């Protein structure tokens, strides 16, 4: 039973309002950098916009969705009101205030450093302080999830932790630990320089710290989506989850191997040696495992649902799936995008192939397809599924929901496929504009224009999404019953301790991080004269 409805709604609404804003910026960016824009403009506006778009989409949206969804899971799966609701509100207001504190200097053009920071460029200190507030607010959530789980375990000794809560807590631990890298970078390296206490910074070390956060953060974004695959999707289509144990193993694998792989972002960097790059490349391959396992379990769960509805044949059962159900549609579209994006990810994993696409538009296309596509479309599904339970009103504009989901899928494909293609041609990313008259660049003009159309479709889809939610608040009241998660075909009566607790896995997570990051970080810290003068951005205005 959900009791903290206002708290959860506040998280989702702040997340989606910020998302709407960032979506407008994103569509504008697609347009101004394309050959369709014949007007001159100040390139600084572009980088300002990219900073805001990235900070909102990377830090604010997924963090708030994970937090709001996490509180909902805690109450619904453990069947008891959230412990520490006042702390949860503190966390929410910290995130909200942090978002505002960060966005003011960004919108004034005082911190156009992009959400990946790029020291030795250093912007206004309030930008970094705002980001730290967002992270600290989310750490309160991490602590609350852990506390709620511990209290439940005390009351239910020996019982299997409900899968949704198990996955939710795994995600919160992953985030708590992965955020430490960027936090170290900001607190010990960037902020002292931004505040004028120090004038130099080790840019190479900062990149290593950021890579600690940069890759596992993606799995933090992904975990609500996977929770929806495993615990919402089978129930929503009237089926059962194929395997409870495999689901737990997948989330554990994410927790353990998502961390020690971030150096694959630094394959072409000079400050990390070849040995550790290889180690991180191998672990990056391993992180494909939980996704392969998940795809199997989810497809098998879909087949169970279909056969229960009378579906038959080796592939004929696909037709008997409840395609009119928005959750069905969202999950299917999400898996298609995950397939394409995952294949791209396996390409990025190898140093040799990465060399031809590193920092090209391919990468932008890749993470928009995976995050913006496969992950965010399930955020929509989560909201659609939860909304009636939060508002106490029916959410039944199913046609509108299906249109919205299809538009998001089509928009994402039309945006990212040409993006991948121009990346292979060698088009660098993060540029305000390109000289399309240059014969070396002109072959890319058509594809870039295609992406603009995709961006426009995404904008329309985003507006429809917000419209559906707003309509949900005006619908007539209805009794929707308690919020429930999917049940496994073979409900486990008992479960091995390893699949029901986190001690071992947390030790492995920290241990592997130390193994894979300890030496590169220590080496750079003892290497003399690697600190370089800071270059202040947006100063003297």
């Amino acid at each position, binding site marked *: 039973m959900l009791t903290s409805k206002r708290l959860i709604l506040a998280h989702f609404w702040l997340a989606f309002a910020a998302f709407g804003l960032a979506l407008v910026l994103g569509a504008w960016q697609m347009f101004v950098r394309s050959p369709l824009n014949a007007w001159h403009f100040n390139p600084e506006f572009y980088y300002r916009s990219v900073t805001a778009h990235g900070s909102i989409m990377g830090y604010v949206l997924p963090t708030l969705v994970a937090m709001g969804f996490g509180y909902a899971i805690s109450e619904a799966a453990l069947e008891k009101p959230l412990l520490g609701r006042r702390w949860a509100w503190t966390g929410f207001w910290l995130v909200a205030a942090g978002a505002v504190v960060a966005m003011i200097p960004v919108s004034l053009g005082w911190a156009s450093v992009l959400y990946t920071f790029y020291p*030795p460029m250093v912007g206004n200190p309030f930008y970094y302080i705002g980001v730290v507030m967002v992270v600290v607010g989310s750490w309160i959530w991490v602590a609350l999830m852990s506390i709620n789980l511990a209290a439940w375990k005390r009351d239910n000794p020996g019982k299997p932790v409900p899968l949704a809560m198990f996955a939710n807590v795994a995600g919160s631990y992953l985030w708590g630990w992965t955020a430490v890298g960027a936090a170290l970078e900001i607190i010990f390296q960037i902020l002292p320089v931004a505040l004028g206490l120090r004038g130099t910074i080790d840019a190479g070390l900062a990149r290593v710290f950021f890579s600690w956060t940069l890759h596992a953060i993606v799995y933090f974004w992904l975990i609500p989506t996977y929770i929806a695959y495993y615990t919402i999707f089978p129930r929503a289509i009237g089926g059962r989850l194929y395997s409870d144990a495999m689901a737990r193993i997948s989330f554990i694998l994410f927790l353990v191997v998502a961390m020690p792989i971030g150096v694959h972002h630094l394959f072409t960097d*000079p400050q990390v040696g070849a040995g550790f790059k290889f180690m991180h490349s191998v672990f990056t391959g391993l992180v494909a495992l939980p996704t392969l396992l998940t795809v199997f379990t989810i497809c098998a769960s879909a087949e169970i649902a279909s056969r229960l509805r009378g579906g038959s044949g080796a592939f004929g059962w696909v037709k008997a799936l409840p395609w009119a159900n928005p959750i069905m549609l969202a999950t299917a579209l999400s898996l298609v995008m995950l397939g394409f994006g995952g294949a791209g990810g396996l390409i990025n994993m190898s140093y040799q192939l990465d*060399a031809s696409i590193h920092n090209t538009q391919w990468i932008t296309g890749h993470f928009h397809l995976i995050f913006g596509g496969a992950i965010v479309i399930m955020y929509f599904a989560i909201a659609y599924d939860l909304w009636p339970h939060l508002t106490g009103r029916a959410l039944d504009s199913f046609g509108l929901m299906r249109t919205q989901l299809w538009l998001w899928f089509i928009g994402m494909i039309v945006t990212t496929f040409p993006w991948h293609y121009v990346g292979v041609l060698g088009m660098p990313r993060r540029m305000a504009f390109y000289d399309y008259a240059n014969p070396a660049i002109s072959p890319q003009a058509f594809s870039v224009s295609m992406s603009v159309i995709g961006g426009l479709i995404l904008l329309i889809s985003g507006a429809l999404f917000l419209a559906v939610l707003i309509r949900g608040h005006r619908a007539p009241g209805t009794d929707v019953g308690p919020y429930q998660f999917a049940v496994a075909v073979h409900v486990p009566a008992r479960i091995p301790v390893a699949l029901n607790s986190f001690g071992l896995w947390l030790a492995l997570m920290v241990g592997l991080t130390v193994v894979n990051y300890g030496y590169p970080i220590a080496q750079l810290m003892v290497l003399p004269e690697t*600190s370089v003068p800071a270059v202040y951005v947006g100063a003297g205005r």
Partner: protein
Amino acid sequence: MTTGTDHGIGEAVAARIEQRWAILSIVIVGVLVGMAAFIGIHQATMPQGHVETADPRTLHLSGEFIESNLGSEVEPDGSVTVRAIGQQYSFTPQCVLVPTETPVTFRTTSADVVHGLLIEATNINVMLVPGYVSVLPTRFKAPREHVMPCQEFCGIGHQGMWGKVKVIDKAAFAKLAAARRRLTCVD
């Protein structure tokens, strides 16, 4: 009772299928990682082995990155070393001259913020991080011109940071190299 047994059999079958898929997944990942390792060792396309440093504050005063030393140099063994730096918002040299069918090593660094360098239509792609030297061995096949954009956000002039690479015939390069110590296509 029969349902209980069916349930047990069903569970065992489900677990077996799942196990097979898990093993297949591990094999897929193993093959991919193995392929990357094999190609890396076999074709010697491995990342830089060691970390080298260069202080951006004194690049222009002494050491290998002083202005008169930038450009392409022919080594005693016939290979070519290209030294270049990136700074907001250009490369020096702005146009790199290299020969065909010759081992070429790029030695690059940054004089201010983080830059990157990619050469279109090749797999040459490297970050320039101030404080560190990036080393990249490569080879060019045919004479042609390539654009060489900065691939990392380096400030509000980033979109203007485009260099060039001119690949010329090995013999023509040797003739030019006999006359000058360091070659670029700017002068």
